[in-house]
Each structure stands twice: as structure tokens, then as C-alpha cells.
């Protein structure tokens, strides 16, 4: 688990509207080349914010990424 990789990705999803649109269109392609574990990659591809939080994603990010936020 990489706290940095997971959270920098969440931060980018929150703040970078273009990247978020690419992720929403094709998550696998948007995540290509990122330094994620298989579990982290699977959680993001599944938009599973609960799992992402369990894997170290900060709560305030998983609750506030537009369109993906858990409440």
C-alpha cells in the first residue's frame, strides 16, 4: 500500500477536471503507468471508495471527489 500513490491520485481526481473526465470514460487507461498495487488499482477501477479508504485513502478526499464521493 502506498499512501502517497493513493492519495495523490484522489487529489488529482478531485482537483483536475480533465483527468477526472478521462477516468470516468476509461478508468483503466487513466490509471495506466501509476504506481499502484493490484488491490489499489482494482478499487479505483471499481470506484469503490470504501475500499480506497481502507487502503489508505484519506476520508475527506473519498467523501469529496465530484461524482465519485462516498457519503
Amino acid at each position, binding site marked *: 500500500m502506498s499512501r502517497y500513490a493513493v492519495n495523490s491520485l484522489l487529489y488529482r481526481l478531485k482537483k483536475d477536471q480533465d483527468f477526472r473526465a478521462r477516468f470516468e470514460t476509461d478508468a483503466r487507461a487513466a490509471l495506466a503507468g501509476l504506481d499502484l498495487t493490484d488491490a489499489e488499482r482494482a478499487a479505483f477501477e471499481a470506484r469503490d471508495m*470504501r475500499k480506497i479508504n481502507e487502503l489508505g485513502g484519506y476520508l475527506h478526499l473519498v*467523501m*469529496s471527489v*465530484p461524482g465519485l464521493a462516498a457519503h
Partner: protein
Amino acid sequence: MGKIVFAGAMSHVLDPDYYQRACGDDGRQKVTACMAEIARMGERFTATRPDALIVVADDHLNAFSFNAVPALCVRIGRTVQRMKQDHAEAFDAVLDHMPEEYPLHEDLANQILEKGLDAGFDLAMSWEAPVDHAFLSPVNTMHGTRPIPPLVPIWVNSFVAPQPTPRRCFDFGRHIARVVAAGPWKVGIIATGGLSHFPELSLLRVGETDTVFDRKLIHWMEAGKHEPLRNLGVDELHKTGEHEFLNWMVLLGAVTPARAQVRYFGELPRINLAAVEWSLS
């Protein structure tokens, strides 16, 4: 000689619609009551004819990316902007109707920063970081349509481990008090956030609070017993969902040994709402 003329601490998501969605009618009713008390605190603050308002709050991974996460950061410059978030969700949406720019008290901020470095506090500084709901929700609730005095925003890293210790935050508050006392200004200080919510920052535990721990903190603040508060551990705050109490610790250092008066305390499943004011001599 300068003086801290007002000190208050309060929850910082102050939005009836947010709590209606999160907690139903009870949420709306309680946050509305809490906001009314905070507005009255704001009226008392304005009546002191202050020169500046120090706002001690935390960043919700908005202003600071994982490029750098400062333990303690002073916002310097002449103005500060409201954080903007496209398609804002949850607590970010609270900001949408608020003014976009606020004046800063440049001299006071610079003195806190520069004298802090001299005193051994390795403070970060920012000319650009925007402020989110943690700063602006209380400030706007306090002032309503009245003018807001120049601000000194100060961030405490409440969430990204390793955080500064409660003792360090308290000691930084003592530093702020010394700077204010040495200056010519009448200054208010607020700390925002809390009380207990989001224990362990776990999504599974959203909806849990720790009222027993909240009441213990309140008891110590009311009694002016600051030593047990200084001895709190960051792990303890993490487990109980009191992360943002680090902001309150800075305020406590600034006003010690003053005693707190609770203006509002209300239990909700999502968070225990609070508004507290200190009696200053």
C-alpha cells in the same frame, strides 16, 4: 499594548442543508441553533472593534496537496481567496455562496511568522493557499452581512499523520499570545472544527461520535484545566474523532488560563456540534 479581545471555538460545517441531508430534520434544527449562537458570538466580537481575527483551522486536503503538508502554516500576503471546487460535493458545497476574497492583516501575520521562527517554531508560510469551509463557514456565520476584519489564517495539520502534538499546538498558541501582547492591535482568535466525528478517519465509522470524550474535553476547558489537555496524545484524538481539537489547542495556548463557557453543544450521529467562548479578563 495589544490584547486578545475575543476567543471562541466552533464546529465548522455550518450549513442547514448539509445537515438535513446527513441527519434529517434533527440535523437542520441543531445546526441552526448552533449557528445562532455563533452569530451572537460574532456580535460580541464585532462590539470589541477588533483590528484582526486570527482563524486557526485545518486543511481538508484542499489547499495543500501531497507536494507538501505543513504542520503549522501562516497565511501571509494582503488577501486570501476562497477555495473553489468545480461540482463541489458535501462540505465543499458549503462554500459556494460565500464571498471570494478576504483581506488579511499582513503585519500581524508577518510578526507571528517571523517571531515564531525566532522563537523556535519552524512555521511554514504561504502566499497562495486558499481557505476552505474550515475558515470561511465560521467567519461568515459570525459576521453575517457585517464587514469582516482582516484575517490571519493559520493551518494546523490535523489529519495527515504525523501531526503536530497537542502540546506543540498549545505552545504555539502561547507564542501567538506573546506576539499579540507586544503589538498595538485588538485581536480576536477563533479555532474551528469538531467536536468528535469521523473516528479513525474511517468511512465505515462515519456516523459515530464520542460524547463521553467530548464532555471530558469540555469539562477541562470550563475548569481552565489545561495541563491534561496538553497531555493528550495524537493517537487518542485519532481514535475518538477529535482530530480538529488540535486547532482548539492553539487557541487554548493563546488564552490560558482562561475558562471556557459552552454556548452550544448538540449531539448528532454525524458529529457533535459545539460553540464555545472564553471569558477574557
